[in-house]
């Protein structure tokens, strides 16, 4: 094993562990006899996911990895070649302007030259030059080397527009490592989301132990793990096409998962609906990427950002299509119509995963793409996201009030939550526009995504347990849960109050930071709308609480059994929800560090 492989193992430890776990589950499933033993498999996979989360946490604590020597060396070479290219350009100008004498090439001198008319490359900025010199460890050069100026210029252009732009061979680079370095972010931001996805998979698997997915248990688990892997690829990638690969990997795993109970027409319908609408969203996304490619000749976010100097209508069209794709993924109004039907038809475990981990990935990627790739379009995308946020908050909350089906209720509440989250994303754009530090919006987003993922999976799990026991998905199935399963009812009450944003619970802390980030950017109207609509949300969450605590149970109702794995999962979820609400400091600080990794520069 050479040093490069060690580096890749180190950088992608959670992803590799997750894929290995999925393959292992497929294999073990073949060997196990049919029946209840397959439930052991779910517990095993859940524990594996906990291990993956641990690996992600380990990455997060270590911070961004330093590039291996091979990468550093080739960046160094490139930077030196770039400096030579600058020299050549200078020589060129000194020839055409005979009065100037050959000067010492310090960064300051070059920057001074840029202000002059004779600077040959208009698109090279001061930051480029300083970065170039810093990378090459050069303070200045005193010799004029004009040999092969053209090749040097190519090297310089490549450095500025990113190595991805050219085939490795053109640059004399052949290490796969370098591609890893340029295509994937590997920062604390993605590490944090790897933890969230692994945790979500862990919880979903724990709750799914008793769910009726007896047939193909191994395939069910492995598809769920592959989907989580796809989400990890999404949040980690810096290239829009690699991102698309992750997006499709997740989608292709989730389509069959939604239609898992294929004999149930509702599940099959949900699967078909999700397949058709999801493909449409993917098509929108990839069409947007193709427009960006024809504009910039690259799909790499850094390249796009570096080459975009003014608002370009073609790039704007591409961005719009990309936002439509993500808007579908996160189920923001008016792209939310699929969510209630799909959640209703999907198995509970899948609906829980879809409404949390998948949505979290959508938001994480949205934030990365918009802030890294499209800072020049902050005004446009912040406005658009503001409109989507307002629509989602209003539509989600008002329709949720009328729902009788618990899954649909949670779906509409999820749409409303997407609206709150979009306020945070929008705040980063507004902050960038106003020249403020965009960190607050990012921090609020990360924190809220974490607590929402944990809390909402818990809510779906309780709904699933009750539906499995009573055979009904209606709200009335919860009647008298207090007497039938006091602990379950209490846990659900806490989760619902947290989703509604009652103080001393996690949801309140999350909403507090989101609204704070909005207020700091002067988005009073949007924040007012969000805050007043979250009061509406407390009403329908309490409707469910009323069923559990005030209405009597049916006469023939028996005590409800939860099962140990789901009980442990629920305990964990409730404890986390209470902990974040009661003592938010460590969580807020962790979110701050995570957002800093993406937005602080």
């Amino acid at each position, binding site marked *: 094993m050479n040093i490069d492989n060690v580096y*890749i193992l180190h950088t*992608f430890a959670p992803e590799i562990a997750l*894929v290995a776990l999925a393959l292992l589950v*497929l294999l073990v499933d073949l060997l196990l006899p049919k029946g209840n033993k397959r439930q052991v498999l779910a517990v095993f996979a859940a524990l594996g996911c906990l291990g993956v989360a641990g690996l992600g946490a380990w990455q997060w604590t270590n911070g961004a990895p330093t590039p291996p020597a091979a990468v550093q060396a080739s960046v160094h070479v490139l930077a030196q070649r770039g400096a030579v290219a600058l020299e050549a350009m200078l020589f060129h100008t000194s020839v055409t302007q005979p009065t100037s004498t050959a000067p010492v090439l310090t960064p300051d001198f070059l920057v001074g030259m840029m202000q002059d008319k004779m600077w040959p490359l208009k698109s090279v900025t001061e930051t480029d030059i300083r970065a170039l010199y810093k990378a090459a460890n050069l303070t200045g050069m005193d010799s004029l080397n004009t040999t092969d100026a*053209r*090749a040097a*210029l*190519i090297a310089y*252009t*490549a450095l500025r527009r990113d190595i*991805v*732009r*050219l*085939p*490795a*061979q*053109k640059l004399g680079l*052949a*290490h*796969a490592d*370098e*591609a890893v370095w340029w*295509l994937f972010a590997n920062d604390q931001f993605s590490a944090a989301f790897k933890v969230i996805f692994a945790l979500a998979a862990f919880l979903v698997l724990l709750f799914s132990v008793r769910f*009726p997915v007896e*047939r*193909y248990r191994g*395939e069910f688990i492995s*598809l769920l793990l*592959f989907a989580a*892997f*796809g989400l990890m690829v999404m949040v980690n990638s810096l290239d829009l*096409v*690699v991102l698309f*690969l*992750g997006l*499709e*990997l997740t989608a*292709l*795993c989730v389509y*069959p998962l939604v*239609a898992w*109970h*294929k*004999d*149930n*027409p*509702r*599940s099959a319908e949900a*699967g078909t609906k999700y397949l058709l609408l999801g493909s449409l969203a993917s098509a929108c996304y990839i069409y947007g990427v193709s427009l960006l490619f024809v*504009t*910039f*000749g690259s799909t790499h976010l850094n390249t796009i950002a570096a080459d975009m100097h003014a608002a370009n*209508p*073609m790039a*704007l*069209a591409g961005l719009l299509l990309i936002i439509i794709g993500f808007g579908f993924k996160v189920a923001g109004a008016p792209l939310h119509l699929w969510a209630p039907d799909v959640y209703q038809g999907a*198995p509970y475990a899948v609906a829980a995963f879809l409404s949390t981990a998948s949505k979290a990935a959508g938001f994480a990627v949205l934030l990365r793409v918009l802030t890294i790739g499209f800072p020049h379009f902050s005004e446009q995308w912040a406005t658009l996201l503001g409109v989507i946020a307002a629509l989602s908050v209003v539509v989600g909350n008002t329709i949720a009030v009328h729902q009788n089906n618990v899954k649909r209720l949670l779906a509409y509440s999820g749409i409303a939550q997407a609206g709150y989250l979009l306020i945070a994303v929008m705040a980063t754009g507004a902050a960038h526009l106003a020249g403020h530090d965009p960190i607050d919006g990012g921090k609020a987003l990360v924190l809220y995504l974490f607590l929402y993922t944990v809390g909402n999976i818990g809510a779906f799990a309780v709904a699933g347990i009750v539906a499995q026991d009573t*055979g*009904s*998905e209606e709200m009335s199935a919860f009647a008298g849960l207090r007497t039938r399963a006091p602990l379950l009812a209490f846990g659900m009450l806490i989760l619902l109050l947290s989703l509604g944003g009652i103080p001393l619970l996690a949801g309140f802390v999350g909403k507090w930071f989101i609204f704070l980030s909005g207020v700091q950017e002067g988005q009073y109207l949007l924040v007012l709308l969000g805050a007043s609509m979250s009061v509406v949300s407390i009403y329908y969450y309490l409707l469910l609480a009323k069923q559990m605590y005030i209405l009597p149970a049916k006469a023939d109702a028996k005590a409800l059994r939860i099962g140990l794995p789901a009980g442990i999962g629920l305990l964990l979820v409730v404890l986390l929800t209470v902990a974040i609400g009661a003592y938010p400091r460590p969580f807020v600080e962790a979110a701050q560090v995570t957002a800093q990794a993406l937005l602080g520069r």
Partner: protein
Amino acid sequence: MHTILHATVFGVLALATLGGAVKVISTRSIIHAAFWLFPVFAGIAGFYLYLDAQFLAAMQVLIYIGAILVLIVFAVTLTRNATSTDEAQTNGLFIPVLLAALVLVYALGTTVFNHLWPIESNVWLDAVPLSAAVPGVMVTDVSALGLVLLSQYLLPFEIASVLLLAAMVGAIVLARKERTPAATAGVAAVEAAPADVRELSNV
């Protein structure tokens, strides 16, 4: 002479692609619509050839004509009423959708025509041919693709193979025929299908 030839080739390809596409949506028989996809896909393959992208053209023929079109034709013939022509081609949303489509065409059209295409600015990047960078190796379009795919894009390539595996697992589960319908009845009951849905499944 040269420009006339170019214009003719382009015109023929464009006519095949667009004409086929119009027939796909205007013909009443769904099987005819499926067959009209052929000139569309072939025309696009022709465009790729015309633009010197031989590999892409070969892939277009292999995947779109060889696999997707055949699959569509199979799916259509296995569906009932494949040859019926009395299905309605429009629904109540015809006018709003037409308006939305026109707005989209206008927006994209003006963008495309006003865009400053980066034909000139790429001069530096294309100045050195690939074969010059790797001495002694005759680099063609396809082999360059292979080199890049297995060096620079190795990791995405591996991710794509995981994607194919996952898709295969999902497809097998969905397509597999159940041997014992009785075993699945319990599942449906627990998942609590409402009465109307249960009736539907009995039909």
